Structure formats: C-alpha cells, structure tokens
C-alpha cells in the first residue's frame, strides 16, 4: 500500500476513534461534574470531581430497582429462549419435520417483524391476562420475540457439530436427554454463549415493549427508567449521565470481556442461511 493511502487510512481510524471516544468520555465526565458547573462551558474540564450524582441516583431514584428488574428480566428471557430454542434448533438442523421449508421461512420472516405491528394486540392480551407491569409478561414477550433469531443462530451452530459424535453416543445407548446433556450442549457451548449474549443484550436494551407494558417501578426496566428520568425544574444532566453509566455496565462487560463470542454471534446472524 502506498504511503498516501496508508496516511488516509490512519486519518480515518483516528477520526473514528475520536468520534466514539469523545462522546463516551464526555458523558463519563458529566457524571462526575459538580452540578453548578454542568451548564457553564467552557471550561470543558471541571474544577473538581464529585460522586454526588451517583449517590443521588443510587439512593433517591428508581434506578437500583430498575437495574434489578432489567437484570432479572434479561436473565430469565435468555434462559427461556435457550430452553425453547436449543431443542427447536436441533430439530430444524437434524430431524425430519413436516412442513420444514414453511417453518424456516416463518422463522426468517419473524426476525424481520416490527414490534410496532404487534404492540397493540399484545397490550390487550397483557391486560386480559393481568400480566401488565409484571416480570412474567415482559419475559414472555421478550423471549418469544428473541426466539426466531435464537433458533436461526443455534441451528447454524448445531450444523457445525460433527454428526459422528452423535452417532457414537447413540451407538453407546445414550437417550435423547443424555445426548443433549453430554454431547450436544458441550459441543454447542461457544455457540450457546454467543446466542445468550445477543439475547441478553436485546432484552436489556429493548424499549418499545418495556415502555408499553410496564406501569410502575415493579417492572420498569433500565431504558424505561432512563427515558422517564424525572427532573423538578431543570433536566438533571449529571444524574442522567450517572444513570447512563450504570445502564451501560453489562454491555461494557460483554464488549470488553466476551468480545469474541459477541462478534461471532453477530457475524453468524448475518451470514448463516
């Protein structure tokens, strides 16, 4: 590559880094800035740093409760969709099914489903079943919405398992449960991790359903609590920044510690057919 092309590439990378690092840093800085200095810029840097916004968010807002709700709902959603998704993906990948082509088409089509299309009937359904403002309601809706992508991803990962491993276990007399427990799940582990991460992130980040089906802090998730963050006279930018940092914790951990699985899932979701 010529020196000029290399310089151009360097410039693009530096600009991209700045475009992402600066907003992240600005929000982080805002979360530590004294209240009085928030609206007084320049100077860009504060005279001192304070934890007061974090204290306010953790002791006087619904955020702690919302964190618990989000964590519980996202975890249960992930478990539910894997519990239903693993056997279904196995059936799609390995077993004869009546109407398989149609089933596959339905799965692909429902990954394109816009949430707004079903939000009004689901709202009525939630009301009838008295599931509004409960974890159960949101977990059911999130899990069923995540299920098509879960099956799609997992079916791809199942196909990568060598069939010989299953045949050997079958010859040794392993029943279906033992087969899942000792052969399929262990061989599927990295794929399960990728799929679980994407499902967890979907549920953690989801806003439209969570906003519509929750009423109080009994079930409000982090994005909803953040969108509805109350201000008395002024918008509490420092508190919002601190709450944003808390809301970003699981995504940060996933991106830094589990990046390999995240990228694998992302690529598999787009490329598998």
């Amino acid at each position, binding site marked *: *590559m010529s020196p000029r092309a290399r310089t151009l590439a360097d410039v693009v990378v530096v600009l991209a880094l700045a475009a992402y690092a600066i907003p992240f840093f600005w929000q982080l800085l805002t979360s530590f800035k004294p209240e009085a200095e928030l609206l007084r810029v320049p100077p860009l840097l504060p005279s001192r740093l304070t934890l007061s916004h974090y204290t306010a968010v953790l002791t006087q807002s619904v955020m702690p409760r919302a964190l618990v709700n989000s964590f519980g709902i996202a975890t249960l959603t992930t478990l539910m969709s894997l519990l239903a998704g693993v056997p279904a993906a196995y059936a799609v990948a390995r077993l004869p099914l009546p109407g398989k082509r149609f089933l596959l088409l339905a799965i692909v089509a429902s990954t394109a489903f816009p949430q707004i299309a079903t939000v009004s009937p689901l709202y009525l359904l939630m009301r009838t079943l008295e599931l509004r403002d409960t974890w159960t309601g949101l977990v059911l809706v999130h899990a069923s919405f995540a299920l098509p992508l879960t099956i799609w991803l997992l079916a791809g990962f199942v196909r990568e398992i060598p069939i010989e491993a299953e045949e050997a276990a079958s010859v040794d007399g392993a029943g279906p449960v033992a087969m899942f427990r000792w052969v399929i799940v262990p061989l599927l582990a990295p794929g399960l991790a990728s799929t679980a991460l994407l499902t967890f992130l979907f549920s953690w980040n989801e806003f439209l359903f969570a906003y519509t089906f929750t009423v109080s802090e009994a079930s409000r998730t982090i994005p909803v609590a953040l969108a509805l963050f109350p201000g008395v006279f002024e918008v509490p930018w420092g508190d919002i920044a601190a709450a944003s940092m808390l809301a970003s914790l699981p995504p940060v951990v996933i991106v830094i510690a589990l990046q390999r699985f995240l990228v694998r899932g992302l690529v598999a979701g787009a490329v598998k057919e």
Partner: protein
Amino acid sequence: MTGREAADRRRGLVYIAPTVLALGVLTVYPGIWVLWLSLQRRIPIFDVSRFAGFENYAFLAGDARFWSAGKTTAVFTLGSVALEVALGVAVAVAINTQRRGRRLALSLLLLAWAMPAVVAAKLFEWLYHPSAGLVNVLLGRHSINWLGDPVVALPAVIFADVWRTMPFVAVLCYARLLAIPADVYEAAQVDGAGRFATLTRITLPLLGRILLLATLFRTLDALRAFDIMFVLTGGGPAGTTETLTVYAYRALFQTLQLGFGSAVSVVVFVLVMAVAWAYLRLLRAGAVTA
C-alpha cells in the same frame, strides 16, 4: 417408514412444540389480531368500539400527517442507511490496514452498538444541548437548537442513529475482510493493480454479499426505528421527526385510538415485509456473489 424415522419425526415435533406454541400465541395471533383491530373504530376512553371496515385506511389516504410521517420515514431510512454503509466500509477497510489498536477501535465501535438506544439518545440529547452541549461548544460557541429547530432536527436524529449503528456495518465488513487471504492482495500487486483498482476490483466485490446483508438488516431496523426519535424529540419539532412508527405509537397510546393506530402499524408491517422480500429476491437471484 422405518421405526427409527418415525421416532425421529415424533422427537422433532416434541422439540419444536414449545416454539410453535410461543410464536403462535405471542407473534402469529397478535399479527392476525392487529389486522382485525385495524378494521375497527376503538377509542376505549369514549367507550367507542365498532366495526369500521376500511374507514381507517381510507382516512389515512387523505391524512397529511400520515404522508408527512411516511416521507420522514423514507428520508430517515435512506439517509441513515446510506451513511452507515459508506462510513462502515471506510472504517472497516481503514482498521484492517492498522497494525496496532485494532482491538481498541473494535471495542469502542461495539460499545456504541451494544448499549441501549435510550442511553445513546440521552447522550446525544446532552451533546446537542443548545448552550452547554459539546457539539455547539466545538463548533465555536454557536447556540444552534439542534433538536428544537425543524430544519436541523431530522439530520441531528439521523446523525445520532448513524453513530449508534454504523458499527454494526463496520464490524461485519471487518470480519469479512479478515477472512480474505493475504495472497489475493499479493497476486493483485504482482499483476500491477493500483490501490484504487485493488479497492474496486477486489475488496468491494468480496464485501458484496455481506454488504447487501448488512444493508438489508439496517434498512429493516431503520424502517421500524422508534427509541432514538421517541426519546430525542418525541417526533417534534412540529412533527418533523415523526416517522410512521412514532405516529402509530402516539395514535395507539397517547391519543388512545386503538383501531386507527393499528392501521398505521399494519402499514409499517407491510412496508417492512415488502422490503425484506425484495432484498431476499435480490440475494436469491445471486446478483451478488462471494
């Protein structure tokens, strides 16, 4: 049919049953119900509930706000997808040339994509603040009201969306570039291909299929986008950032017109499915290989 085959078939049905049940009750059934709702006039607060046939759709045909929302959806989708794809490819190619800092760059990009859209919206609301926002400060103490001025509000929302979702395109392209063997480029160099020729004849064609897929996913997401404009502007100022999805939502849950709102959501539904179908045909046709 042998005993083994019959057993496999039974096993398959058992394995798929929970999924069919869940999707049946929570996706397919609501999907049919919304069509039925869209044919009704239902305003619970006034206790109105009657069959209305195609009245809601007939009203939409002459509804200026609906057509304006349709136009906003089109501008938002075309604008954000075009920018995301162009910038995503550029960033992926540029990162691929670096020896160091790849992981840092990838982490920053992935973080923007992985955090809740509401967090990104709040971040941009603060960056766009008329007096204390970083954007205005960096532009030299202007006091542009990014989210309150009808002329710049939609571009500002598009920019926030591009920031949040360009990483998806970049990461997919970058992963594809990593899979291209180095000897392809060496061979091109031996044949005397310049860097422009290398980019247009080798890199972009090899990215073709993944780019088409990334564009498909991004287009579908942009058409049904909700969080970012709902939190940033709520559809304002003066309705300039109100997309079809936001219009449907406000009709359903702010003015509580369940029938009419459902008709608008059916339009979004049909639009998304039509676009998905068109792209899939394009992929099937093998217009793009590799």
